[in-house]
């Protein structure tokens, strides 16, 4: 079973407009759908959008919540993009994120509570990334060894991992009568509000910096290291890469492990930065949303930061407008953006390319005629 893994990887942008265009086209399409849905509900689109902006970027709490959601989405977006660059579809970020959070919580429980935070936090981060990497490694290995489609394996692993974690927190490592682990006592990640009191009440925390650092590291790795070059080579032309001396199956393994580690890092945001414990269901779809983030960010680490901000705004915005229209409005818009990026954008690019070619041909003809 190899076919679904041979699905064409998203096209990588080569020019600036190819990178900027997708979000604009996608947002335009989403705006039209959004207007229609709002009108169906009997509300004025302008009112709803005003409320959406006011509830997100209109106040410090809203901004803090957006930044909090951006943090997790950056991690899962990077996870999908890194795999995507190697031609792999890691649909398993949801499970890897949850597992990472659980790994961090367990490490936090095991560490003596007297351990200073500067030591405890890195250990928890390492545990989160290692757990995520482990979950990512299995589909990578099955793909490299047996040619098993990582798409299906990661989807199935999501169910398995979530069921396993569910069993652990409902029967083994849990506070009785709850579905969460005991709180981590050996230090957490400070909230942004401790440095900027204006964010008071919001969940935003310094994991945001880790996510940004991860984006920079991913960019460095992909575009400035030999290993990253090999990864991209495998994504573009696996056969040519193999012929050129790249050990493709090793790259697949390393990539899936790194991808899982990035998704796992996202678990820190909730476990150490917000609640202090692992709770069943904390991932809440952020793993799947990472696919959208990576697509709109064109699999580029910095594009992903922007896309994560966009989807975090939509997600938080849904809560802000829920009083007058169902908050699922923004979930629909999120999915429409994905669909639009996947369909309309390549089409628009193709038309633009055709138009550009036509114009240059006409120009050549004209100058020749002039000469």
């Amino acid at each position, binding site marked *: *079973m190899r076919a*679904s893994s041979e699905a064409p990887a998203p096209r990588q942008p080569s020019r600036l407009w190819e990178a900027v265009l997708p979000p604009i086209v996608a947002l335009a399409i989403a705006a039209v759908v959004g207007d229609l849905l709002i009108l169906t509900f009997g509300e004025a689109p302008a009112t709803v959008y005003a409320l959406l902006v006011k509830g997100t970027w209109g106040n410090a709490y809203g901004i803090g919540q957006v930044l909090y959601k951006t943090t997790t989405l950056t991690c899962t977006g990077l996870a999908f993009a890194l795999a995507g660059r190697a031609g792999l579809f890691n649909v398993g970020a949801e499970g890897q994120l949850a597992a990472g959070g659980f790994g961090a919580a367990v490490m936090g429980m095991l560490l003596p509570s007297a351990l200073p935070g500067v030591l405890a936090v890195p250990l928890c981060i390492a545990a989160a990334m290692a757990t995520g990497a482990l979950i990512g490694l299995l589909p990578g290995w099955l793909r490299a*060894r047996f*040619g098993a489609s990582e798409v299906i394996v990661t989807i199935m692993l999501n169910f*398995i991992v979530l069921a396993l974690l569910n069993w652990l927190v409902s029967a083994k490592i849990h506070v009785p009568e709850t579905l969460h682990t005991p709180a981590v006592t050996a230090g957490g990640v400070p909230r942004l509000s401790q440095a900027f009191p204006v964010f008071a009440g919001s969940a935003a925390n310094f994991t945001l910096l880790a996510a940004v650092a991860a984006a920079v590291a991913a960019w460095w790795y992909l575009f400035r290291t030999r290993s990253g070059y090999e990864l991209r080579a495998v994504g573009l032309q696996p056969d040519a890469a193999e012929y050129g001396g790249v050990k493709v199956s090793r790259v697949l393994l390393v990539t899936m492990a790194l991808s899982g580690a990035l998704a796992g890092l996202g678990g820190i945001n909730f476990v150490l930065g917000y609640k202090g414990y692992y709770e069943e269901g904390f991932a809440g779809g952020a793993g799947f949303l990472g*696919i959208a983030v990576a697509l709109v960010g064109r699999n580029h680490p910095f594009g992903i930061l922007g896309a994560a901000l966009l989807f975090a705004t939509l997600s938080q915005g849904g809560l802000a407008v829920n009083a007058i229209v169902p908050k699922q*409005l923004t*979930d629909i818009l999120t999915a429409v953006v994905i*669909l639009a990026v996947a369909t309309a954008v390549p089409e628009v690019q193709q038309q633009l390319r055709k138009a550009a070619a036509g114009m240059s041909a006409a120009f050549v003809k004209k100058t020749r005629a002039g000469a």
Partner: protein
Amino acid sequence: MMVLAFILQALRIAVPYLLAAAGGVMSERVGVIALGLEGLMLSGAFGAALGSYYGQTPWAGLIGALVAGAVVTSLLAIATLRFKANQVVVGVAINLIVVAATRFFLRLVFDSASNSPRVPGFGGEGAGNAMLASFLNPVVWIGLAALPLLGWVLYRTPFGLRARAVGEKPEAAASLGVNVMGLRLKGLYIAGALASLGGAYLSLDQHQFTDSMTAGRGFIALAAVIFGRWQPTRVAVACLLFAGAETLQIQLQGAQLVPSQFVEMIPYVLTIVALAGVVGRSVAPAALGKTE
């Protein structure tokens, strides 16, 4: 009697899997990855509740399911066939859209965040034996017949031959005068109709639509397609196996022998095992996912 009850329950549980998996086989055989099965099922479940609620008869529910399924299939077809978008991405997006859209319309139509009011379903009500009465449901029979019928269509009819050709070697099929796009479109709509009937079974059987009620069944159906190596008979066996595992899980829940979460994992673990080639190398339709 215990055994009979077990078989009857397993058959009932298998119905939505059989229908969705039949859709999955059809879709993948013509070359389109069936990652959107979950969304197609959920839209069918919602359409069925809507139709049955307004028509006050489950037959209107079936029409509602087919209409909703056709709408989602059209979206899928436009994205994958017209725009040749990446099929994995489209599948994921379709599933997200349907989850969000059914919640949105649940609140718009029924003013509820979690479920629809009670809607009419097939048979069962007031009948003596509830277990047997559930077999008065025509969807059960459509479900049991779907895969054998599909097998006959795929291997014994000109349409089936062309459909398989389009999924294996579209260029060759095209050079023989087969309308590749037209056949893929037909295949997709058949797939959409089957999967949405699978969803309709759920909401009509429970007499209401509940938020995200398909609960991963579309993915399990896809697993059954791969496990059954895209061959209707094997896929049907896989569906019955998964349904049997689920029935066992329900029956064991009372006994508390194994934590329910572990029984829950069985179909997913089986799928991975199947993919790793432990039960024999499986080969997907050669043109799956390629619509260039």
